[in-house]
Every structure is written in C-alpha cells, then in structure tokens.
C-alpha cells in the first residue's frame, strides 16, 4: 500500500469517526464504542474492496456487506454517507422520528444497506444465505459481514458457521470486531467467547487474526480471504473499542451512551487534530 493510499484511508476513517460522533451526539442516543472500533475496516472495505455503486445501490451483482452487529449502525451510515449512498446532512437525523436512519440498519429505507439487522446472530446467517444465493446462481459477487465479539455468544452464529463451512461458502468473509468489551463489561468476564480463532478453525473456516486498525494488515488479510477456496474466511480484528476518542477508548460504559456537548466538542477536537496530523 502506498503512503498516499494509506493517508487517504486514514482521512476517510477519521471522517467516519467524526460522523459517528455527530450522529450519536445529535440523537443523544446510540452506540459509539463499537462503531469507532470498526471505522478502519469499513473505510477499507468501502474504499478498496466492495464492488458497489452509490448510483446503483440495488445492483443484483454488487458485493454485499451485512452489519451483523447492527447496533453499530452509526459506522455504517457514516461510511455510506462518505461514499455517497446517502446525503451527509441526513446523519444528524439518526434515530429521529422523522428520519429513515433507524437505530439499527433498515435495508428497506437506507440505500446501500444490504440487510436489516440489529438482533444479534441473525446477520451472519443472512450473509451466508446471500453467499449461497451467489453460488446457486453462478454469480461472482462476494459477501462480507461484521460480527461483534460479544455477539459470538449467540448460538445462531455457530449454526451459521457450520452451515457456511458445510456449503463451502468461500465467497463469504466475516470479520469479528474483537474489542474485548460488551455492554456488561469485558467479554472474558461476562461470557468468554475466546479462543475465537480456535473456535472458527474447528468449525472449518480459514482464520486470520490481525490488528484491526492497521490498513496494511487489513489489506493483506482481505486479499488472502479472497484467494481462499473451499471454505469461508473469518478475519478477527484486534481493536480498541471507542478508538480515536480518548475518553471512550477501552471503556464498556461507552458501548451505548451519547456524549454531552463538552464531550462531543472534545472528541471532535481530537479527531480534527488526528486529521491534521495525517498530513503534517
């Protein structure tokens, strides 16, 4: 990856983080922590990987992205706005009665949103169904899905994992946002889903564990997943919940809480500084 490309991705990810903060602050509600932790991966996917077109968001041959951890909708809406699927000014309507931007993704009313999600465990199954649909119809689109590490406690994730390996869905690539926190605390304390890599490997997946904030590693892992034949891929992203906003980092309390005005200004100032530092 060239330095220029990396800077471009960093700028995009930082804009996504600013949008996330703005959405949650505007709504005075929402889930910033797990949205911020996936900003880099979403920036990379929507910039470098997904074969999608904001002019034709429902194109049948497009790649799909399913946000199985649907509560991090602010991150999805942010990247959709940054890539031109939805107007950026709509983001401040997030969770508002007059807006189409629902608290959790609604595929029927949000251009570029490929699956309704929010109830944990359901999205990965839907993604597997899409991947199977591509195989049945001989289409070459790929399906990407984002799971949370807390979400792995849902039994359906493992039903879907068995199903995806059984039907050799090598056109499916799942990510696990391994930020180590869920609403009630550390995942190892609330319900220990580790070792995540060994579980997926035992279920027949091609497993990679990477730094989810490093674009070189994301690029390499997505490339390897694309080349993997005969089995689905999972990329386990070691991330920091709340990444990029100092007071939110690695704090379970920011799973589902909105910043007040002072906190919002502080967060935006930090992100602005980060943006300036990219080109410094």
């Amino acid at each position, binding site marked *: 990856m060239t330095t220029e490309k990396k800077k471009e991705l960093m700028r995009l990810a930082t804009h996504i983080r600013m949008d996330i903060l703005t959405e949650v602050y505007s709504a005075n509600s929402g889930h910033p922590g797990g949205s911020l932790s996936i900003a880099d991966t979403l920036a990379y996917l929507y910039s470098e990987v997904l074969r999608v077109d904001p002019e034709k968001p429902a194109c*049948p041959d497009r790649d*799909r992205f*399913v946000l199985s951890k649907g509560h991090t909708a602010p991150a999805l809406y942010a990247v959709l706005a940054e890539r031109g699927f939805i107007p950026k000014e709509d983001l401040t309507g997030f969770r508002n009665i007059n807006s189409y931007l629902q608290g959790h993704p*609604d*595929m*029927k009313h949000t251009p570029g949103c*490929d*699956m*309704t999600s*929010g*109830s944990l*465990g*359901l*999205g990965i*199954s*839907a*993604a*597997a*169904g*899409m*991947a*199977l*649909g*591509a195989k*049945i*119809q001989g*289409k070459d689109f790929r399906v990407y899905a984002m799971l949370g590490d807390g979400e792995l406690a849902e*039994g*359906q994730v493992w*039903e*879907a994992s*068995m*199903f995806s390996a*059984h*039907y050799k869905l090598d056109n499916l690539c799942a990510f696990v946002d391994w930020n180590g926190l869920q609403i009630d605390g550390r995942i190892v304390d609330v319900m220990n889903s580790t070792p995540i890599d060994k579980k997926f490997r035992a279920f027949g997946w091609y497993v990679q564990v990477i730094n989810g904030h490093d674009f070189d590693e994301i690029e390499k892992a997505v490339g390897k997943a694309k080349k993997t034949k005969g089995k689905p891929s999972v990329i386990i992203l070691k991330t920091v919940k709340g990444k990029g906003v100092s007071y939110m980092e690695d704090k379970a309390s920011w799973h589902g809480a909105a910043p007040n005005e002072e906190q919002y200004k502080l967060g935006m100032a930090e992100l602005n500084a980060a943006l300036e530092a990219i080109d410094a």
Partner: protein
Amino acid sequence: MADKKATREAYGEALAEFGAKYDKLVVLDADLAGATKTATFKKAFPERHFDCGIAEGNMVSAAAGLSTTGLIPFASSFAMFLAGRAFEQIRNSIGYPHLNVKLGATHGGITVGEDGATHQCLEDFSVMRTIPGMTVICPADATETRAAVEAAINFVGPVYLRFGRAATPVLFDKETYKFEIGKGVVMADGADVTIAANGYMVDIALQARELLKNDGIDAAVLNIHTIKPLDNELILSYANKTGAIVTAEEHNIIGGLGSAVCEAVCAVAPVPVLRVGVNDQFGRSGKVPPLLEYYGLTAANIAENCKKAISLKK
C-alpha cells in the same frame, strides 16, 4: 369415501411440480425433509434443496439472505420449530424487511398425534398473524395445498403456510379449483348459522352441517384458508346473513382463526361467535381420532356450538 392425502404430502409434490416451472424456487429444510416431504422436491431438484441441519434459526435467516439475491426460498420444518423456535428470526430477518420468503410449516395442530405436546403446534396462527405484512394460510386439503403453494410462489412477500401430518379427505377437484390468497371459499350456503373453518376442520365442519340438518338447522360452511389477510367481506356478509358464527380450527382458541373472526365482526357486525379449537391447553400423545375427540374437534361438538350460537342470537 373421498380420497385421502396429507397436506404435507401435497406440499412436497407441489414443490417438485413447480420446481420445473419456477427456476428461482429453492428449498431449505432442517433435517426433516422426509417428514415435511420436501424430500420429494429434493429428489427432483437435488441442486436446489439445502439441508440446514437441526438449526431452524439459521435456516430462516439464511432464507432471508437467499431471497435478497432474487431466489424464492421455501424454508420448511415442523410448525413448532418454525413459528415457535424461529419466531424471532421470522419477525426480524423476514417480516420486518418484508422479504420474499415462504415458510412451509408441516405438522401443525393436534393431528401430529403420537409425538405429543412438544411437537403439536397450537400457537402458530396466533404468533404469525401478529407480524405486520405476514400472510398466513392453512389449506383444507391436498388440492388447495397445491394451489396455495403456487399462489405463494407468485406472491411477493413473506407467506406462512401450515400443513398437516395426517391424511385427510380431498375436498376439491384439481382441474377446476380456483384459489386466491385472502378469499374464503363458500363450501355450503346456509341461513341459520355460519361455520368458519380452516385446514382439516373444514371437512369436519361439513360433517357438522349434515348433523345439523337432522335438527332442521341450515348451516353455512366457509373455508377460511387465509387467516391473514382475513376475508372480512365474506365473513361480515355471513355474519349479517346468518346472525351467528362458530369457528373451527386445529389451534388454541386464543389468537387464531376464532380470534381473527371475532376481531372482524365485533366492530361492525357484532353477532355471537363461538370458537371451537383447543381450549387453552397443550396437546398430548395419541392416535388422531381419540385426540380429536379428547379436545372436542369433532362434528358433534361443532354442531353443539352451532345450536348454542343460534340460541345467543338477539
């Protein structure tokens, strides 16, 4: 004696028949293909049948994903494990985004028989019809099953179809029978009371009509195969015409066809409605005839309720 065939049998045959006509049709099952009869489709189209193993939640959400790629998936299991176990997946993966998935639920009702209460789903009409935009159908016989399956294929949106395990009489002629989602069928006209039934209870309602004749009572029989959207027009016209209704279904009397009919008439044509069904109980093991007797799903009990309903008329 009419021919007998289980509606689940007709379901499997219909899938296999229409598989040739509709190339977007794919079928999912959860390790019950032999019992739900989707195995009949699998035999004809092995490359379009996907066993999901004993994992109904994943099957339902995967069907949702499949439908977004332009395919028309039928996902099958026993009614208990579809409408029951996978209720939340049906609501959130299929109902909320209004996806084009068909749910073929077999082994509905009490006539599951020997397997008993854990497998006798008596709540599916109730929970399925509370999902906005869901169509809920329970065909009365094998002919109507075939027609309902094709109607569901051509209907864009989620459809829940309930079939039975037991062989039941064939009531309609395959060559001439016309089926329309949401349009009830007048099986017999009548003046004194209306029996609104679905599934196997349509045949039993016709038997009740014969019993009532002996007492000089002229009962109309309606086949309300679509519980949602309900044929309000037909039900209200018979409420006005006969002044009393008895509903009959293989379902808890709470929440199913009986409740739907009450909801339809209460505001605009309030007439007595008595509900024949399983009276807020779980099922139990047994052969079909004694089970029907035990729970009062009989012609005699329907006839008795008709007389009561007539006596309640103002």
